[in-house]
């Protein structure tokens, strides 16, 4: 799809989140809730003793029945529908022909570790902090956007062999 048209569609989705739910979109938060719920299922005592985990279970709340967790679940359906609609559903490892599969997968994994760790610290990722933050004119949103893209530009030279 034309990128400007896709941007308008994405903007309207964000606007409806603001209109219906009084908030923006998110993605990394959904991953956090999945982790919190898993740790609670495996080691409930650790959750009760931890200042970090225990706050997600206050007042009888559960991390899998909150807005962001359901929104992220919906993202999988929406992505799947779009892929089906445009004929892009295939299992594959996408990478530059110059690198091996295992190198691509290793760096994909490491990238995920870094990105979501940083997102927890900054209280949101490209969706929750940068995009949604800019739409409500928050200083944090604009700065996070500049920091993410600025840092990726700075580091791009070191990782150029992965992509070009």
């Amino acid at each position, binding site marked *: 799809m034309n990128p*400007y048209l*896709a941007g*308008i*569609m*994405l903007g*309207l989705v964000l606007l409806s989140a*603001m*209109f*219906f*739910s*009084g908030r923006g979109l998110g*993605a990394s938060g959904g*991953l956090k809730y999945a*982790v919190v719920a898993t740790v609670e299922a495996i080691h409930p005592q650790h959750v009760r003793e931890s*200042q970090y*985990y225990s706050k997600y279970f206050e007042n009888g709340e559960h991390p899998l029945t909150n*807005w962001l967790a*359901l*929104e992220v679940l*919906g*993202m999988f*359906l*929406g*992505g*799947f529908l779009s892929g089906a609609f445009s004929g892009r*559903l*295939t*299992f594959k490892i996408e*990478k530059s022909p110059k690198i091996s599969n295992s190198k691509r*997968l290793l760096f*994909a*994994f*490491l*990238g*995920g*570790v*870094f*990105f*979501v*760790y*940083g*997102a927890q610290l*900054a*209280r949101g*990722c*490209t*969706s929750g902090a940068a995009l949604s*933050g800019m*739409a*409500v*004119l928050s*200083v*944090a949103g604009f700065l*996070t956007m500049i*920091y*993410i893209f*600025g840092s*990726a530009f700075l580091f*791009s030279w070191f990782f150029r062999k992965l*992509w070009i």
Partner: protein
Amino acid sequence: MGPISLLTTMPEWVNLLIAFLIGTGFGFALEQAGFSSSRKLAGMFYGYDTTVLKVFFTAAIVALVGSQFLSYFGYLNLQLVYVNPYYVWAALVGGVIMGAGFIMGGFCPGTGISALSIGKIDALFFLVGGLTGAFLFAETYPFIQNLANSHYKGPVRIDEWMNLSPGMFTLILILIAVFLFWIAEKAEKKFKRPEISNEI
């Protein structure tokens, strides 16, 4: 008048259904934008594909302008819409770590979900890494909570911070975006690379 869920009483399941539907639209829009491809996303940082910039700024401006119009005509109370809090050091350090993750993995969390939903195996590894990152953050939280919470400024808005009206700031942002789109189109010509759409 919106935000609907804050100004009307609705059962929790309706609120969660709305979240699911908005998520479905979000996933659909990201995939249609071409964000299920890491090589397309990484193109942003080497100049050969600037879709990220075009989609990102267009979306932010549509939501920004749309919400201001809804507010102006009395359909949305913007005072009740969440504004992200500003923690000076957490935003900087977190943002830099995220940028490093972006160029290594080729995805951000939302685009990783988009790519996994159409079957990209590398996105599965990215998201497993993401879950690991969230787990590491939870476990290391006692050591970094000072950094995470220092220099808290509250939910500061950039228009107030710059002493401009929201409308004036929005106009300036639109002009900046148009200028960036112009640069982006130039960059795509300059750093053009062989067609890869049959590989992605």
